[in-house]
């Protein structure tokens, strides 16, 4: 089993490396000159020239890739052309902020999703089931910015004025120092993600509940709790983990829109800014980060799958 996991690990690393290559190449294709991008209207030829060689935009590509990769491996994400500072210092707090957003959303929606899913699976065909399924189906369909705008109208500016619609934390202070501001962004993401988990959990759980061994467990006279907890749940976890992983991965990317909408100081906002400013190394860093999140969560999901499957685990 451990061999299997190790192999999976190696593959992930390989993938990650290829991704880094891809990201680097893609971002190189970004047109426009960072120097110009920074100076904006004040871009006089002299100033551009000065800035360009200051940014060493003239080294050969492969050299820049190796430098960059070496940096990334040693935890140095490079130099932000627009802040004139290290990418680390630019992204440091933002990464934390985004992670807070992600983890909060992930934890809440996973918990809610699993519980709702199991609950409805056990009440298949009953009204509660139909209501929950219906609602989740509807929400699942809405693009995140639609949900976001909706929530702002409802809870922040127009109908009620309960929660702040934008995040304004003073520098240094962590985003959670004013929890009120986290509510809407987190809520939006939760609403986007939960339906999928719920639906998947319901589907797999229903399948498992119909399986021979669950019926057998009942025929052995086991109490319903034991049947669900010991016999059904473990089998549902494996497949659902995959979906959760996919959703988290989606979050990592989808956070862009939400952060833009709520002015949340995370990597998503940084990305949009960086793309506009042609701040190549920041774009690379953020894209790579998001990709890494995806790869890691999938790795975890697979490991969960491996562990919950004795056929493999026993090896």
């Amino acid at each position: 089993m451990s061999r299997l996991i190790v192999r999976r690990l190696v593959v992930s690393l390989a993938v990650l490396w290829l991704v880094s290559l891809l990201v680097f190449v893609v971002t190189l294709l970004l047109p426009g000159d960072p120097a110009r991008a920074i100076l904006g209207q004040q871009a006089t030829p002299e100033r551009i020239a000065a800035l360009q060689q200051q940014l060493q935009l003239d080294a050969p590509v492969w050299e820049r890739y190796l430098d960059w990769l070496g940096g990334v491996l040693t935890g140095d994400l490079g130099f932000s052309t627009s802040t004139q500072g290290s990418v680390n210092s630019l992204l440091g707090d933002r990464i934390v902020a985004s992670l807070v957003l992600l983890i909060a959303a992930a934890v809440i929606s996973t918990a809610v999703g699993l519980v709702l899913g199991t609950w409805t699976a056990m009440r298949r065909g009953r009204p509660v089931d139909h209501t929950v399924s219906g609602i989740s189906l509807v929400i699942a369909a809405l693009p995140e910015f639609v949900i976001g705008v909706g929530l702002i109208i409802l809870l922040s500016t127009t109908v009620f004025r309960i929660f702040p619609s934008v995040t304004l934390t003073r520098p240094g202070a962590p985003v959670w120092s004013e929890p009120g501001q986290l509510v809407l962004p987190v809520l939006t993401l939760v609403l986007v993600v939960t339906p999928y988990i719920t639906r998947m959990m319901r589907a797999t759980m229903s399948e498992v509940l119909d399986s021979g061994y669950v019926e057998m467990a009942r025929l052995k006279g086991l109490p319903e709790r034991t049947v669900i907890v010991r016999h059904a749940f473990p089998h549902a976890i494996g497949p659902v983990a995959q979906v959760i992983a996919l959703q988290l991965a989606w979050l990592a990317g989808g956070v862009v829109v939400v952060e833009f909408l709520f002015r949340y100081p995370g990597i998503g906002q940084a990305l949009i800014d960086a793309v506009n400013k042609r701040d190549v190394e920041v774009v690379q860093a953020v894209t790579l980060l998001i990709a890494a999140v995806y790869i890691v969560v999938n790795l975890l999901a697979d490991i969960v799958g491996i562990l919950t499957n004795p056929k493999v685990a026993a090896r």
Partner: protein
Amino acid sequence: GTTAATAAPTGAPRRGGTLRVGITGGGSSDTLDPHSPVSSPDIARTLNLYEPLLFRDHDYQLEMLVAKSVTASPDAKTWTAVLRDGIRFHDGRPVTPADVVASFRRITDPKDPKTGAASLGMLAEVVPVGENAVEFRLSEPSATFDDYLGQYPLGIVPADFDIKKPIGTGPFRASTFTPGLQSEFVRNEHYWRPGEPYLDKLVLIDFAADDARINALLSSQVDAVDQVPLALIDVLGSDPRMRILTSETGTWLPFTMRVDRPPFDDVRVREAMRLIVDREQMINQVLSGQGRLGNDLYAPFDPDYASELPQRKQDIAKARRLLAEAGKADLTVELVTAPVQAGAVEAAQVFQQQAKAAGVTVELKKVDTTTFYGDDYLSWDFAQDFWYTRNYLPQVAQCALPDSPYNETHFNDPEFLDLVGRASSTMDAGVRSELLKKAQRIEYERGGYIIWGFANQVDAHQVYVAGLAPSRTGLPLSGYQFRKAWLG
């Protein structure tokens, strides 16, 4: 505080308190550099941390700041600035001529020229004179050099200036700064204006998105915001908790036609274009009426503004005729637009619509701001741009001379050059006025700009904020100068 205080505070200013201001734009490239502000937050920071020798007041008159006087020699080739007595930097050190010299050396450093350098082309050298004066020696005469000196990116900083210790003579001292997010300032105890500033603390907050900024105001997360989207003026105005601050300005959003390339190398085509525009409609649709008519001339606050020239109006018939004569009936042009300023893209769309009437097909090419100011900036055939208020000659220096940094219309007219050249070297106001009016007539007839109007600056603040006044500079929120602001 969300407490529904709906009456504006009156009486003597109260000291103390923190003012939180939401400002449009900004991003990871924000800077505290006194000499190369780019985004609005940059400008706001510059204006509160640093002061140039002299600058424009709210009525767009020159006002002495670090200097107490700036005077020219008869030949207009030497200008002398005498420093204000007892003026000090944030750290308490007195401002010396050496500091002024150093500041200008930093600005005009050939290896890394700063924003202000562009308009100081004629500046040969700066030399200290005695204890409290400096002399500006020019390569060619300039009658309005004081005007050039009165720009916000020309702040005076100590000789040993270090961006990590951003020190100036401005009303506020920097305390914290996070690019793209926000910056905090505290009162400068050594400020030379007695009693000012009133605030203990000033917080400037970047906002990438308009709605986020407005929502922040509505949910009382900030006390004042610049650039109220025109759509929201009525709402905010009708909200008892809010006050609108409207200023007439000389800010303009021109369409720029390259006079050296077809189709606009034909003056008839240029005039046709100018006749196509329905200026009232522009102001109504783009600015919701918040603006004043333009007559294809800039610098409306200049004493020598050519107000005698007849106001151009939409005249489709004539436009068609001119185009026909130029052999350009049913002309098709590509208009490059970008969100360089609120209203830009909208203006482009309105123009496109108006042009249909004259049988001119306008194809919009919308690019992002970076691309717009990218490699092709200044070489688009037909595009847009955005300028703050300036007086005539400084504006000409920026955009109308062959060697101007931003001659986007590639305007290069011998007669015009001659007039401007003579005007800049004449100290006699009367004569100069004559020359300038002639020059403006030339631009009015053959220039490459379509200047359809001057946008009002509309900002908003919570009712309990006092001391903010309308400003003609075009800079929002009383020119981003918060030294007079106080909280009731």
